[in-house]
Structure formats: structure tokens, C-alpha cells
């Protein structure tokens, strides 16, 4: 039944477009018709049979621009509304981009030592899409926030702006902690990884060009030897993957990030965190 409704909608759009003066908006609305089925597929594979609470602003919120200004770099922020405590904490955050070729952009794992389960990053947006953040608490309950993001127009493509340079610089890391660092207080760290993070080129029928996908697939961050954040990510995360997240400093200790890409190259970076200080490292 759902398919028939979708088809009727498309017919209506094409007739309207021919009969009435064309408007970009009317034509551009059309791709939304397929969204429901993509989400239901992803939902089935990740959360089969589980309830997802969609009125969950008291648990998780998602900030995203209504329009993807630059298709290759759309800043988003997942903001959770509870403190991470051993009794009750967000243990996973799923970041989904329905209409991207690979809809599961990232799965973050967090701990009580994360302090806050907030993540800011940047994603590629291929076309009009729902972006979803789903928080899984330690009791297994699920909460979702979603935002509809309009695609950018014209010459904005999700491809990298200088792939030759991106490849040359792959593996550089900038890691910084925004202080002042106070013991016991959730503190923001920013991890920037220079990497093409590319889906690779599909085999172009005309140019015969082909490049395999090359992206960061795994991220592990620890503080004083205890895990703070880990993530499985893919090429829906923008070139030069960039993450802002929290950790809870307890005293002087080392914040350490390890990054592994799809060529199994690993890169790491450490920041020595001192109470009262601001720290950064570039590798």
C-alpha cells in the first residue's frame, strides 16, 4: 500500500511541474518519497523489535542547519540532557543520515567517564535527508532526535576540495582541550584528524576512474587509561574528521586518541592534561 501511495505522489509532482510555472521548490521536494523505507530498513537492522522514544527532547537533541550550505561539511551537534553517572548514562549514540549511500555515519560508545555524552562533528549530506541521533541508555532504552536537512544547490558536491593534498596529509592529528581544566568537571576536547575520509570513486563509465574507499573507521579515546569515547565511523563523516566531546579530568593525566583507517594504518595523539591548564597537541 505504501508503495502505491509513493507512486501517486510522484505522478502528482510531475504533472504539477508540467502544468504550472516551474518552481525549484516543487521539483526539489520529490526525493522525500523514499525516506520512510530507508529508515525502516536501517531501523530493522539496528533496532529490530525495540521501542524508540521519539518525544525525547529531555534526553537527546540534535542541532543541524535546515539547509546544507556546503554538502561536504555540514556541522551537527548531538546534545544529551543528562549527566553521565554510573547508574544512568548514555552508552551509545547512533548518528544516521538516511539518504546517504551509507546511512550509518557513526556509532559512538560512551562511558560514565565521558561526563556528558555530547558530540559535535561534521557530515556529508548527499541529498535532502533526515538526520537522526539515537541515544541508547545503559538500561537499553532508546531515544531519538531528528532533523530534516535540505540539500545544497548548484555546484556544491560532497566531494573533497583538494583530494591530492588530503591524501598527502592523511594521518596528521590536532588534539586540544579547552580549559581551564577543573577536576571532576566535564571538559571539552577537540580531535581533528587530517584524512580524505572518502567513499572512493565509483567506477565512472566514461573516465574509467576508480579509487577504493579510504576512510577512518575506528576511533578510541581514553583518559588516564580509562575509555572516554570510541566510535565506528565511515565516509558520511566529512573529510578531515573532527569531533568535539567531553571527558572528566580527575587530576593530571593523559588524554590519548588512537585512530585506525581502512588501510589499517593507525595514528595516535596524546595531550597531557594539567588541572587549571589548557592543552593541545599536533602530530
Amino acid at each position, binding site marked *: 500500500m505504501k508503495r502505491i501511495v509513493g507512486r501517486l505522489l510522484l505522478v502528482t509532482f510531475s504533472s504539477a511541474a508540467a502544468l504550472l510555472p516551474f518552481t525549484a521548490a516543487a521539483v526539489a521536494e520529490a526525493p522525500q518519497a523514499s525516506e520512510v523505507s530507508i529508515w525502516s530498513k536501517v531501523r530493522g537492522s539496528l533496532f529490530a523489535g525495540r521501542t524508540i522514544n521519539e518525544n525525547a527532547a529531555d534526553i537527546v537533541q540534535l542541532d543541524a542547519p535546515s539547509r546544507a550550505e556546503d554538502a561536504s561539511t555540514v556541522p551537527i551537534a548531538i546534545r544529551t540532557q543528562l549527566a553521565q553517572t554510573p547508574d544512568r548514562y548514555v552508552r551509545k549514540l547512533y548518528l544516521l543520515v538516511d539518504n546517504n549511500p551509507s546511512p550509518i555515519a557513526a556509532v559512538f560508545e560512551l562511558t560514565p567517564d565521558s561526563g556528558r555524552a555530547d558530540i559535535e562533528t561534521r557530515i556529508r549530506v548527499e541529498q535532502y535527508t533526515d538526520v537522526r541521533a539515537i541515544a541508547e541508555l545503559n538500561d537499553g532504552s532508546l531515544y531519538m532526535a531528528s532533523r530534516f536537512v535540505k540539500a545544497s544547490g548548484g555546484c*556544491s558536491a560532497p566531494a573533497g576540495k583538494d583530494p591530492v593534498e588530503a591524501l598527502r596529509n592523511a594521518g596528521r592529528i590536532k588534539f586540544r582541550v579547552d580549559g581551564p581544566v577543573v577536576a571532576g568537571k566535564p571538559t571539552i576536547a577537540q580531535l581533528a584528524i587530517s584524512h580524505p575520509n572518502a567513499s572512493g570513486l565509483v567506477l565512472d563509465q566514461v*573516465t574509467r576512474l576508480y579509487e577504493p574507499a579510504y576512510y577512518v573507521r575506528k576511533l578510541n579515546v581514553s583518559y588516564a587509561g580509562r575509555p572516554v569515547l570510541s566510535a565506528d565511523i565511515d565516509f558520511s563523516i566529512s573529510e578531515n574528521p573532527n569531533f568535539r566531546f567531553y571527558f572528566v579530568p580527575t587530576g593530571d593525566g593523559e588524554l590519548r586518541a588512537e585512530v585506525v583507517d581502512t588501510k589499517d594504518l593507525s595514528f595516535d595523539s596524546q595531550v597531557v592534561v594539567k588541572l587549571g591548564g589548557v592543552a593541545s597537541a599536533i602530530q
Partner: protein
Amino acid sequence: MNRSGIGLLLAAIAATLSTEATADRFTLESPAEGVYLHRGAQADASPANGGDIANIGFIIGSRCVAVIDSGGTAAIGSALLAAIRKLTDKPVCYLIHTHVHPDHGFGDSAFAGSDTVFVAHAEFPAALAARRDHYRAALRQTLGDAASGSEIAVPTRLISGEQTLDIGDRTLVLRAWPTAHSNTDLTVFDLRTQTLWTGDLLFVDRIPVVDGKALGWMMAIDALIAMKPAHLIPGHGPPSRSAEVAFTAQRNYLHKLITECRSALGNGITLSGAVETIGFDENKHWLLFDEYHRRNVTAVYTELEWEE
């Protein structure tokens, strides 16, 4: 006939009408001897303008014609070819792409299958392969059936550094630039009339779009001004006769983006914060500011994050 059949028929009629309309009102001006320019609308592609939004044109030599960019659809490319045929029977020996963007290249279809050699920056084929599907879908979404048949050709003559083309008693100097407006920028300089075809290294009145690197673009601007061309043909906007004057607004805008993004990065302002605060006083200088300014801030901020 069912509803979808009627829709298709009407769309086909609309597409035919728009092709004819494109040919009818295809304007041409000649800023210098043997140099012909068709100016696109200073707007985003829409059904109303049929995707005719970029400056395109050609240069006539004693042996043949060099086309510089083919326009945003097959229909525009056909109109350009028709305009050439009103002036000369000489073959189109080269079609030179100033960069990979779709508003400049989807008219290639009109020149395919002839003896035309497609010429572009060495990075063009890879850039096209990475973007082609996206550009096709966007064109289809924006123009519907008026997009039909539009394809960007894969160039076979690739330019690195500086190379010349001879079109018969007339030498064109082609220069491939390091990443600036895009990573595929190529300029064409006609030695006879000292006319510089900048492609999108120069936007006049319409807001520049950073799809490459602002720092590289600033260096390219200085080098282009130093060439002291007698005529400049920008990628968008009117031609002019002074590079110093023509580049001023764009240079100021890019300089402001660079300065303010650097400052935001130094002060720990996030990308989202920068996008909502930087450069809005430039609004008064530019067409399509709301459509492209935030995107430019995004591009420049993320470029400068990795500055040494």
C-alpha cells in the same frame, strides 16, 4: 491517456519550448576582436533561466574556433554552437573548460561527436568522476526535463602548468592553477587582444564561491592582476578592462573571510558559531549572498583549521 502520460507530454512540450526560447534570446557580445561572450544570468539555475547562468563564449582564429565553456545544459550548448555558425563555418577545434562546475560544462553534449578536442585542467577528470552523479541529479532536480541530454565531456587534452593552443594566427595561453576557486581552474589568455578569460577565478557582482582554497585563490588573484590584461572576461558578471578594479570586491571579500576565520579559530569559536557570525556586513556588495556566504565561511574555516 493517464495522468502520468499527460504529465510527460506537457513536460516534453515545455522542454522543446525552452530549447527554442534559449536559441532565440541567446545574446552575444564581442569585447575584443574575434572574442565573443554570452553572459549568463546573475542567478542560480532555475526553470525560468533554463540553467543559463554562466559566462561562456568563443574565440575565432584563422583555422578554427576555440570554445570556452559550454553552458549549463545541452540546449545552451546548442544555442552557442548556432551562434558560432552564424559567424563562421570554421570547425570548433577546442572546447576549453575553465573548471569542473556544472553551470559551465553541461552544454558539452552539443559539441560531442565532432572533431572537437576537450581541454581541461589535469585534475578535471578525477574531479568530474567524483561529482558527475551529484551534478546530474541536481540538474535534473532543478530543471526537470530541460536537463535531458546534458553531459559534461571527459577532457582528453589535460593541462598542467602553462601550455599554448594555436587556432590559426592566434595563440591562446592556457594556465592551470593550484587549488583556488576549485581544484580545476584554468585560464585562457588570447595574446592577440590581451584578453584574459578568468573562468570562476573572477566573480563580478555575484558572490564568489569557495569550492577550493581561499589562500590559493588570493595568490591566483595577485598573479592575474599582474598580467595586466587589456580585457577581462569573468566567469560571472560583466567584462571589464581593468584587472585591478575588477578583482577589488572579490579580493576584499576573501581577505575578510580569511582574517575573520583565523580569528574565530584562535578564539576557539566552533564552525557552527563562525558560520552564524562572520562576514555578514558583506551582504550589501553581493548578489546571492544568502545562498552562498555561509558555505564560503564553512570552506574557509575548515581550510584554515589545518594552516601551519
